[in-house]
């Protein structure tokens, strides 16, 4: 490996060029297909003069905003044209490092188009939809960031689900015992960190395959939380252990008064603000600090990192423990931020979707949050599917994020974007 000859290097370079070109064209084709889809499916099914009405007030909010009424066909034509232009440019020249940003833009346009079409002739509460989207994105984004922390350090973490579930349980019990939400939060975060440590011991010290180690943690977490739950906190005489309370809604001064945006973004409980904070913090830490550089170098090439004096094992333990704590924080959202109690298997697969959000977001916190919003949107939409004007079963709307993940994974990401040394236990020589 150490002696790559010149010709080999050139060939590798050519290979990457070819791959990049293919990826560029695929992405452009996706944009074009989106445009075509809007024209063929949406526009052609509408009467020319029909209007779409979006309610811009989630209801019960402090800000008032007028409804947004517009002619559906005109707007759809504009959207489709923009998508087509972006697609053409992407195929011919490529957006380079802005490609993912443009992908996000096209996704938003497409979804907006879908919504305008599905609402045409009636009305949809857009503000309510987006508000729920933000809420639903929280556990997914936090879970994805747990995955990013671990995987940037080279440890695959499919145990996010189990870590979240454990934290949800522990936080419920501690918060109820001490009647203090913050003690519950702390206990949940620490429980997540402990699960991370176990994952680390199994996969770093004992070198178990990381996917198997994650599976062990998931099965164990499901078992132990359900066991203790049905043994204790679901029973009437222990009911006091399952009354943790909930973090209150905080309306950000001034900002929450902004029409439309205020109620969507600035009147939530602290988890939404924490999500934005952690996304910012993790992006900064990963890409702008020495700490992040070291972590990423361990994930990409542990041997080189070791040669340069970085303690690979220590870094990896830190990564999984911090990742566990992040998942733990996300887990407490279920009990302390969303339902105010613990129920068996209450995470309901969100940890796995968080994992998908991480991959969708290309192992980047901001991308993961974008993916979290995308999944959250469909989650929020599938609940309201019956209110739409088109007869689309909610089950199919519910499938959309998973289908989208598969398509993006297969067409754009495919091989090679994950940290290079991921999944391989490091053997010190």
């Amino acid at each position, binding site marked *: 490996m150490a002696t790559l000859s010149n010709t080999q290097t050139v060939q590798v370079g050519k290979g990457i060029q070819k791959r990049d070109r293919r990826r560029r064209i695929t992405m452009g084709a996706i944009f074009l297909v989106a445009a075509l889809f809007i024209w063929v499916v949406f526009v052609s099914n509408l009467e020319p003069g029909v209007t779409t009405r979006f309610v811009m007030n989630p209801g019960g909010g402090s800000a008032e905003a007028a409804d947004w009424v517009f002619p559906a066909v005109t707007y759809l034509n504009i959207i489709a044209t923009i998508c087509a232009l972006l697609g053409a440019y992407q195929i011919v020249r490529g957006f380079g490092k802005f490609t993912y940003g443009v992908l996000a833009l096209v996704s938003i346009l497409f979804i907006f188009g879908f919504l305008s079409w599905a609402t045409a002739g009636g009305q949809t509460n857009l503000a309510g939809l987006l508000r729920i989207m933000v809420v639903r994105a929280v556990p997914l984004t936090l879970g994805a960031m747990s995955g990013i922390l671990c995987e940037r350090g080279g440890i*695959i973490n*499919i145990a996010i689900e189990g870590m979240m579930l454990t934290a949800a349980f522990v936080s419920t019990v501690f918060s109820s015992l001490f009647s203090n939400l913050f003690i519950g939060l702390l206990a949940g975060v620490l429980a997540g960190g402990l699960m991370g440590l176990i994952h680390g011991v*199994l996969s770093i010290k*004992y070198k*178990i*395959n*990381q*996917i*198997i*180690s994650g*599976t*062990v*943690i*998931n*099965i*164990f977490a*499901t*078992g*132990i939380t*359900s*066991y*203790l739950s*049905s*043994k*204790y906190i679901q029973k009437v005489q222990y009911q006091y252990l399952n009354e943790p309370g909930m973090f209150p809604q905080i309306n950000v001064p001034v900002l929450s008064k902004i029409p439309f945006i205020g109620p969507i973004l600035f009147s939530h409980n602290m988890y939404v603000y924490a999500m934005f904070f952690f996304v910012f913090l993790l992006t900064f830490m990963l890409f702008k600090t020495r700490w992040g550089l070291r972590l990423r170098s361990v994930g990409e090439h542990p041997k080189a990192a070791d040669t340069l004096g970085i303690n690979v094992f220590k870094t990896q333990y830190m990564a999984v423990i911090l990742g566990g704590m992040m998942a733990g924080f996300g887990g407490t959202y279920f009990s302390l931020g969303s339902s105010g109690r613990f129920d068996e298997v209450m995470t309901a*697969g969100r940890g*796995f*979707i968080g*994992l*998908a959000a991480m*991959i969708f977001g290309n192992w980047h916190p901001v991308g993961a949050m974008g993916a979290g919003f995308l999944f959250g949107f469909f989650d929020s939409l599938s609940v309201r599917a019956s209110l739409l004007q088109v007869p689309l*079963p909610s*089950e*199919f709307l*519910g*499938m959309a994020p*998973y*289908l989208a*993940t*598969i398509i993006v*994974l*297969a*067409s754009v*990401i*495919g*091989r*090679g974007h*994950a940290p*290079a040394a*991921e*999944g*391989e236990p490091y053997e010190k020589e």
Partner: protein
Amino acid sequence: MEKSTENKKNSISVFWDEFSRSNLLVILLAIFTGILLGGVLVAITTNEVYDAFRVSFWGGLGTAFKTAWNTYVSLFTGSVGNPQRISAAFESGDPLTIRRAINPFFESLVQSTPYIFGGLAVALGFRAGLFNIGVEGQIFIGAATGVWAGYAITGLPTIIHIPLAMFFGALGGALWGFIPGILKAKTGAHEVITTIMMNYIAFRLVDWLLKFPMKDPNEVTPKTPWVLDSAILPRFFDSPIRFHLGFFIAILMAVAVYLLLFKTTWGFELRMVGSNPNAARYAGIKITMTTVVAMVLSGALAGMAGANEVLGVNYRLLPAFSSGYGFDSIALALLGKTHPLGVILSSLLFGFLRNGARSMQLSVGVPIDIVSILQALILAFVAAPAIIRTIYRLRESKHKEDLVSLRSWKG
């Protein structure tokens, strides 16, 4: 050790030497340790134990031991049967009493059957270096297609209808395995993620199927019609024993997977792709083809698990079909060292545990979730033999103890 015994080893010490290095001992000790820790957990979550400890230390210890013991006795009688009751039933000679007494044993076999299919599915994937987490979804789809063939295709004799319905189940699962397989082979999309996504798609698709196209028009809630008599897997005993033909089909499939993996060229190629893809590529093995076919076969086996449940046990498909069989299958395939015989044995273990735990919940009030905890502990110990070898001070294995060789997202 005395010198004389070292010089001249008798057969027993040679056997012990080999045995203590072998993987089998590790597995047995892993199961033992897991069950032991499960007993500790049961004891420390029982209030009577604390009450007894308040009186005296030894009394507390005795109560703790008794609690754990009672739990496992109830697990045993729930999964195998109560020996006294069985002998009493045979003495009485009443067929119904006998059937009721031996029912727990056969019910455990019924519980094991989908595990065998599912475990084989996961094991086959592992052998090809693929981690099929999608078994749960494939079971759902297999159940849907199997039940459809069972009620919608009419006018066939049993001898044709049963294989046909099982085949449809396999077909549905195979389709659900084919998609991640072809994506993995052609684009490198990692099967762990795609199969998880396919799981969720399957759950929602089956929900929708049950609500609309496959719904029994005579029912208010979403249920499929009953499977026709000609498609029902025959049972060997009268009620209440539900032991049916599916168990033997599962065993047959295990034999087929064994022959395929270890006695055919293609199986060798598959295992080579799994253990060393680079070597396989240089040897001219078509990795794309092998990956796709492995996923298809894996999905087909999982689909048969679903078909087996609707054709052998439930006779119709209900929304609450979810069973967790798919996720347990991962654990038991690893426990069985991804070998068909190992899969059968660990499926039996899991089936007996699952069935016993249900009656355990009823009789001594220990939640059924104890089984998941046992499974996780056993799996952890089997996957990390070093833990067991350290606890029991065993010597290192002569063989490399790699369970499976899985690669990361990169593919």
